């Protein structure tokens, strides 16, 4: 003990305690106690040289961090648990919105979980004490966010009138054809590869760009559709994101003056933008426009504001003087912002029994809104939905399934090997230019050239077994049952093709369709000949 006291006294001689106790002075003082870089080792080395003098813009100390976060929790849970329960808020939500939140909250939970690892590996790689400080606070933030997103599903599961899906969406991820796209962007994108590349994916693109529509502007839609829970929780999540955005910016600051960085930075930025955009642009758009009864504004306008004008202009545009250029894929990304969510939703309707939620085809009012904001929508998508409805899309006795209609009409559904998301080459209006490549005796589908280029550069990075490969030969009702996609009676599906309380589909109705899952890559007449 005596020895340790001496050590403390010696340390205080070298680094005198501050004369006042303002939190920022404490922060400055703490930075004097730095890591010994000569012996510092990292488990996750980066190809970039991260400057040891990089700063952390918010100057956090553990005391101020903990106080700030505890106030957030008190305000968030304090509001929700008492007042909203008494107001019966969970039952005043527009059904479409209550359904889409089954996916939004659950998919975002995966992102927050991946972000724990992503920010932890950055903490390990960085050598600047302040930079480490910022990353470390982010690790703790991300744990908080996992709990918050799970809490949204928990709250809906407890109070919303159709809890099925809010209660066990994690289990249903196994068969949801959209979920591999979540894993690709939020999982692999956030935490694998070079640490600085992870920072670009997670902090500079995922958080600084796409959390603004996904977590901030979505709250306006939630409020408009009677959801009193999501605005409070999501806006509280985002109060941490601004520090993460600053972390991402300081990652760039820490490397950008090194001439070697420019060998990689533009490619890593382009790939990260495409990786995050490929899932988030169609998913957020579909969630907002097809998951709502009351619509706020066209998704393409939100994208223009939050992604193009503000994120790209204020972040990337200002960094142009350091050699950052517009991503080569920007034009295609904008085409996707107009049409990608309509393409994705068409497939979600076609494959509804696998989604775990109740979907409803656009109403007459919805169709008019879509046509007004996306001229040409009705002729391309609206007519299909009208035909499907007439053929019995909603009726459990009809034997109709959109996926079978597509197969019978020559519209193959494939899985893009880079983004892991499904696409239909013959019905897409987004920037789809498909290709089918062979490697080591296996054939792969790609929906566009940006992803194809990424795969060609690092094929081992995109290894995964897609939905059709995994479940080829399985009968659909048997697959849904084995994945837990039924309600407490053991036979009624969690997913439904309408939001009515009667006329619910059961496993028997799916069994009557008699669909054995094919592997589209083996059905050659679906594939373009080029």
């Amino acid at each position, binding site marked *: 003990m005596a020895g340790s006291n001496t050590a403390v006294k010696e340390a205080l001689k070298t680094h005198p305690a501050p004369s006042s106790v*303002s*939190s*920022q002075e404490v922060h*400055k003082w703490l930075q004097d106690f730095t890591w010994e870089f000569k012996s510092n080792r990292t488990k996750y080395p980066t190809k970039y040289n991260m400057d040891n003098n*990089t*700063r952390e*813009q*918010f*100057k956090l100390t553990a005391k101020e961090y903990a*106080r*700030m976060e505890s*106030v*957030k929790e008190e*305000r968030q849970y304090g509001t929700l648990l008492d007042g909203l329960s008494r107001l019966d808020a969970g039952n005043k939500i527009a059904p479409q919105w209550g359904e889409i939140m089954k996916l939004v909250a659950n998919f975002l939970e995966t992102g927050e979980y991946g972000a724990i690892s992503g920010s932890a590996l950055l903490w390990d790689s960085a050598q600047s004490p302040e930079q480490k400080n910022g990353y470390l606070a982010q690790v703790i933030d991300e744990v908080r966010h996992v709990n918050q997103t799970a809490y949204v599903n928990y709250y809906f599961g407890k109070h919303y009138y159709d809890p099925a899906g809010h209660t066990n969406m994690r289990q249903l991820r196994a068969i949801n054809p959209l979920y591999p796209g979540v894993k690709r962007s939020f999982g692999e994108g956030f935490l694998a590869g070079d640490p600085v590349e992870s920072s670009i994916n997670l902090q500079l693109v995922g958080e600084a760009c796409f959390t*603004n529509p996904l*977590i*901030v*502007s979505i*709250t*306006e839609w*939630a*409020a*408009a559709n009677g959801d009193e829970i999501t605005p*409070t929780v999501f*806006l*509280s999540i*985002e*109060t941490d*994101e*601004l520090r993460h*955005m*600053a972390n991402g*910016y300081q990652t760039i*600051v820490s490397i950008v003056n090194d001439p070697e960085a420019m060998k990689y930075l533009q490619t890593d930025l382009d790939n990260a933008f495409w990786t995050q955009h490929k899932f988030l642009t169609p998913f957020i758009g579909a969630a907002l426009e097809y998951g709502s009864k009351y619509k706020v504004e066209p998704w*393409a*306008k939100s994208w*223009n*504001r939050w992604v*193009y*004008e*503000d*994120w*790209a*202009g*204020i*972040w990337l*545009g*200002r*960094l142009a003087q350091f050699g950052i250029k*517009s991503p080569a894929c*920007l*034009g295609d990304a*904008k*085409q996707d*912002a*107009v049409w990608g969510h309509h393409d994705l939703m068409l497939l979600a309707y076609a494959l509804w029994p696998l989604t775990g939620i109740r979907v409803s085809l656009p109403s007459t009012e919805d169709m008019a809104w879509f046509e*007004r*904001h*996306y*001229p040409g929508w009705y002729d391309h998508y609206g007519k299909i939905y009208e035909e499907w409805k007439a053929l019995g899309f909603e009726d459990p006795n009809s034997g109709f399934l959109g996926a079978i209609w597509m197969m019978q009409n020559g519209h193959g559904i494939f899985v893009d090997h880079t983004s892991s998301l499904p696409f239909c080459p013959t019905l897409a209006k987004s920037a789809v230019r498909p290709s089918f490549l062979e490697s080591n005796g296996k054939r792969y589908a790609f929906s566009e050239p940006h992803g194809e280029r990424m795969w060609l550069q690092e094929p081992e990075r995109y290894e995964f077994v897609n939905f059709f490969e995994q479940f080829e030969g399985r009968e659909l009702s048997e697959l849904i049952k084995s994945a837990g996609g039924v309600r407490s009676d053991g036979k009624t599906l969690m997913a439904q093709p309408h939001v009515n309380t009667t006329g619910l589909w059961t496993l028997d109705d799916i069994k009557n369709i008699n669909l054995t899952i094919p592997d589209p890559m083996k059905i050659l007449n679906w594939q373009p000949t080029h």
Partner: protein
Amino acid sequence: MTNSNAYNAGTNGMEGQSFIDEFLSKENSVIHSSDAVVLAMMKTEEIDVIIDEMIKPMRVDNPTIAIEDRGGYWWIKATGKIVIDCDEAAEILGKRYTVYDLLVNISTTIGRAMTVGNQFIITTELVGLESAVPTGV
């Protein structure tokens, strides 16, 4: 004169096919650098006061500041910089209020955001590159 930072200024003021044509135009398929900053602040008792008593009056000196009520949050966009002095906020609110209390309710930033002493600053400046990160003490 319309504020170019307004919520639906520029391309977003167009509708239907006109909007899509402008959005997808060649001119808009590359990034244009912006000197604006954006803030979203959760609506709370304190933030509503800060908007009314501190941010709105800032428009006298900086008429580019646009403020929008977006349901659960305030959306603010300005050219250059926004500084929120939490000593001043504490005086207006009549209670202890630090910059870390303010951060409880700032939901997003686009631009370089930081704390300096008891001030919250968001700026178009590339701090750490064009200038040093201010120490605050």
